[in-house]
């Protein structure tokens, strides 16, 4: 356990990618000065939401120690991830932080039986001395997700449905008894009638197994349904973060407002409002290269300053907003608008 009681502590991380040729080329800042943390004694579900190309996946690679930040530091239980070099150290770390990926059919090799992965994980992490003991551990973690070893043993990935196989990949992640699960778009490939069972599973893990979950998604409706806190990402920045009820019910940042307004409501009552025209971002690279606020080109309440200098983080009540509308530059715009 770390000294400051934090499970995960992300401090001002920035990741830059060089794109283009050796000579010219430009710098793409995929993750820009992001900080957040998770407490170790309070399991919670944190959602990171945003469009594609907002830096969600880069951030998740950072948290899995797959990528070293250009600037800033990531600490897991007080340990700097950039200082993990040895294989044994990495193994110890990854035992506590387990990923669940987007497409369950791509996660598993179609020619390999699914239970082989579960046994491999159990043996590799030294959870069991032999195959027979491993079976017990595997069965236990499968029962946590509503399956059993009997149901999946000797089966190939194509013999299971999308929902089942995604539950197997959650069960696999649970074998090493992690403290944190990093789920990157875990339900976007799963059918509607099975989607909620995966989402409910994360809730259960938090409440019963005391596992924290970082849920990366662009689906705000399921995010609202399960998470405690949310961070809205835009072009490498977290533009708004705070308790999910505050942020999604009463958004402050113009981008969050646009995002929430764009979620089609599953009821045919406000069709006109949804059909109101919006301006879309031109191309990703253009917005990444923008000086000042990345949303300035699309923002309905844009001011001159937004195009010149990066907006500061403003703390309002329990949340953080990165927008000039809530600073002394605000002019006539009121925060409650």
């Amino acid at each position, binding site marked *: 356990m770390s000294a400051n009681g934090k499970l995960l502590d992300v401090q001002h991380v920035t990741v830059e990618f060089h794109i283009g040729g050796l000579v010219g080329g430009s710098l793409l800042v995929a993750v820009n000065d992001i900080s957040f943390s998770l407490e170790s004694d309070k399991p919670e579900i944190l959602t990171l939401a945003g469009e594609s190309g907002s830096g969600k996946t880069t951030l998740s690679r950072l948290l899995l120690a797959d990528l070293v930040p250009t600037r800033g530091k990531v600490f897991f239980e007080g340990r700097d991830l950039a200082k993990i070099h040895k294989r044994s150290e990495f193994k110890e770390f990854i035992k506590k932080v387990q990923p669940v990926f987007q497409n369950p059919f791509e996660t598993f090799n179609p020619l390999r039986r699914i239970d082989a992965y579960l046994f491999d994980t159990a043996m590799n992490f030294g959870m069991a001395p032999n195959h027979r003991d491993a079976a017990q551990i595997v069965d236990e973690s499968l029962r946590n997700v509503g399956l059993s070893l009997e149901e999946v043993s000797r089966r190939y990935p194509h013999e299971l449905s999308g929902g089942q196989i995604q539950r197997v990949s959650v069960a696999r992640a649970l074998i090493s008894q992690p403290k944190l699960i990093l789920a990157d778009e875990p339900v976007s490939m799963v059918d509607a*009638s099975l989607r909620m*069972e995966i989402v*409910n599973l994360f809730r259960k893990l938090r409440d019963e197994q005391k596992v924290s979950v970082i849920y990366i998604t662009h689906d*705000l*409706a399921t995010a609202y349904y399960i998470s405690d806190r949310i961070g809205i990402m835009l072009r490498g920045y977290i533009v708004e973060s705070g308790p999910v009820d505050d942020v999604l019910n009463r958004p402050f940042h113009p981008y969050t407002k646009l995002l929430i307004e764009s*979620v089609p*409501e*599953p009821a*045919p009552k406000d069709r006109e409002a949804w059909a109101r025209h919006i301006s*879309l971002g031109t191309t990703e690279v253009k917005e990444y290269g923008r000086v000042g606020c990345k949303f300035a080109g699309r923002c309905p309440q844009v001011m001159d300053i937004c195009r010149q200098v990066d907006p500061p983080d403003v703390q309002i009540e329990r949340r953080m907003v990165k927008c000039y509308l809530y600073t002394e530059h605000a002019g006539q715009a009121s925060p409650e608008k």
Partner: protein
Amino acid sequence: MALLSVQDICAYYRTEIYGISRTVRAVDGVTFDLLPNEIYGVAGESSCGKTTLIKVISGNIKHPLKAMSGSVNCNFGDYKVDMLKVSQDELRRNIRWKEISYVMQGSMSVLNPVRKIIKTFEDIVDTHEPITDKKKFLEEATAHVNRLGLPTEILNSYPHQLSGGMRQRVAIALATLFQPRLILADEPTTALDVVVQRGVLQMLKDIQSMSSNTVLLVTHDMAVHANVANRVMIMYAGRIAEEAPTESIFNAPLHPYTQHLIRSLPMIGERSNKASLKGTPPNLANPPSGCRFHTRCPYVMDVCRTDVPDLVQVKERHRVACFLVKEASL
């Protein structure tokens, strides 16, 4: 008068490997009409036959897919044709792109990565109406793109230079070049984010109201149907479970499957417990007997296990295939 009338089509995938034959009954007895000037939504889980249905309607039937029975009667003004009987040559010359066009899922794979967008436009136009005056073609293409609210620069871009949403809109622009009467859109926004999805669907809706044509919109996302479609058909395991105007589907669903689909949708601002259906979608190579939903239905009765429920008209424009619902009940 229906623009397109689908009569009892059965389309199966038939494969035979080393003497073992396998039949996947992807579309099994589907009947419905598409009316002029409407957006008709088709919803259902993956592998319920949505894409196969589109393939049959667009006359794109290739081995191992086989249309076993039924007809797809199109009524393009003076030009009437059965899509299942028409020759490939005629299909290419008179129907594809001119009367029926197809917006495919995953626009990134639709556009040729090594040709500029304008060249793709040229290829398509040239196939259907040989270009004689290049300058005029350029003007028309520019006008078409501008009319749809896309910037002119995209014509001189390569696909990789455009964002996903822009590429999908280019795919829609291509599909509407000849003002077709029917646009088949197969999951046009599935890979896109909510904001971009909204932009793309707005464009599709604008085109529809501008030229009063018909759009068949296939997506598994019920929320999209709620906001875009006029009528919605719910498919389950190759058959129609329910078909009704959008308001009825969402406010008074009758089929247990539809009811579950609507109830399980998460919404911002509401956090009541949402459950999933037990069981898994059936394997269409070996579908359940009777009503195909009976293995997962919470209200299953004995009759459901043996008999196939007919699709009955319960109200004006509202059809349901379920033994729980009787014609007399409404």
